């Protein structure tokens, strides 16, 4: 027959294990909840708005491609200053356009399509203008958004 001492000891061990087990379980539940509530690195979905680049990174008469969600966008600083942003997917066969500073136009290398700085298709096969995005300067960030 087990002595009451041993039983007591076993009970204490079990209680101790239960106690620490409870803490561990609560930790395993509360830890993800806490991490979830902390704002993530990217604070907003990039589907409708994205920081294209920083002020100063783009010079006048220069253009650059940036990632907007899963599609490319193009940010251009016009020769006279002022930013414009468009979808960089050519409306002809979906190639990625680029900015050509010598002719001050947006150009598609695939079939020589050209767009002016309002995004309008002015030469070559593209059938429609490029979709234009809204550009806002927030502090030292250039933010491009849809709609």
């Amino acid at each position, binding site marked *: 027959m087990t002595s009451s001492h041993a039983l007591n000891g076993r009970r204490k061990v*079990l209680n101790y294990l*239960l106690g620490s087990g*409870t803490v561990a379980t609560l930790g395993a539940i509360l830890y993800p909840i806490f991490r979830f509530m902390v704002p993530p690195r990217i604070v907003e979905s990039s589907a409708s708005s994205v920081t294209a680049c920083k002020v100063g990174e783009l010079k006048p008469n220069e253009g650059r491609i940036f990632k907007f969600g*899963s*599609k*490319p966008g193009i940010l251009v600083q016009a020769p006279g200053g002022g930013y414009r942003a468009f979808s960089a997917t050519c409306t002809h066969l*979906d190639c*990625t356009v680029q900015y050509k500073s010598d002719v001050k136009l947006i150009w598609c290398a*695939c079939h020589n399509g050209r767009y002016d700085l309002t995004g309008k298709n002015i030469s070559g096969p593209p*059938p429609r203008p490029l979709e234009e995005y809204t550009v806002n300067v927030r502090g030292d960030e250039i933010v491009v958004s849809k709609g």
Partner: protein
Amino acid sequence: MWRLLLFVLIGTAAAQPDTKVAASSCVRCHLELEEELQQPAKLSSEDIHFQKGLSCHNCHGGDPTIGVETGGPEDSMSRAKGYIGVPKRGKIAGLCASCHNNLDTMRRYNPQARVDQYSEYVTSVHGKQYLKGDSNVATCTDCHSAHGVRSVSNPTSPVYATNVADTCARCHADAKRMAAYKIPANQRELYGKSVHGEALIKNRDLSAPTCNDCHGNHGATPPGVDSVANVCGQCHATQWDLFNKSPHKKAFAENQLPACVTCHEHHGILRTSDNMLGVEASANCVTCHERGSAGYAAAEAMKRGITRLQTRLDAATELLHRAERAGMEVSRPIYDLSEAKNHLVLARVEIHGFDLAALDKTLAEGEKITLASEQSGWKAMSDLAYRRKGLAVSVVILLAMIGLLVAKIRQIESAKAKGSGG
């Protein structure tokens, strides 16, 4: 009293609101006539000449100021007043040219107007035949109409971009008329089915070419075998450039084969497909290149390369969309894949240089990007699976906890049993 009223009423009714048109008694009278004689007057309100202040007499002569009140038709339509009646067919072009070929005249109405239409016309096939007295060929009024002439930029004009093909087809789709000149009459039909026709007529894309863009406007002449490529190259500059640097240029010229047209047709230019390339019976390459030749091998290699990139691209796209649907973050690899797609499109342009090495370079870059994106896709899927491992750890902790609870319950029960059992 009421007679005065009636006179006033008639007088005011006769005073038309459009003063320019009303200035001509020709229009006023002819509006009262029927059918054929009424038509020109009715159309005058849409005519650009009338809008600029000109009128019937500027072409037909006569005196437009003599109206019903001041005389009769014989007085206004008199030879003495320069009236020429309906101009003879052979005289029409010269009549139009009397103003339209004169810069001093045209400058007054439209400083930007060109004045070389007639000079061009006489060099064209139409013009040359016309001057020989052929009444079956087109002259100014056939395309621009005689009355109700609208500006070229007016969408209802027969020479507005989307209407040009139908205007030319009025004669050129008439098999009987064309038979006399030994010209086929199917161009309009072919054009309607072509990419250009679809773009211009169906989709109203004004950058697509129609008859006059390739054949010329007033100096319309079909481009010759040696110059048709230059016409295509006006828009398709990249392909033209590549072709000129390729071995095909010399080969085509030596064999009297027109560039571009030999593979792509001229009027019935259909949407291109990868099937045009390669060594299948339906492909273009084997029309000239026999099995065993270097060209045959090159065609085969090019087709294989392009097909491979297309297949890999499709597989990567499908994988990434699967990951996206599952809720994984794959926007970067999808974004990168658009660059790979660029390379595939560029490769299809590169073909026109028929340089296997250059093509392989473009294809290789595309494949590199595709592979990287595909790997990202697989990583995303495996991350999905990796979560299972993470959760397995939690499950172990939970199961352990459940075990401890069950042990505690057992312990309480046994303590109770012992207590009651004594």
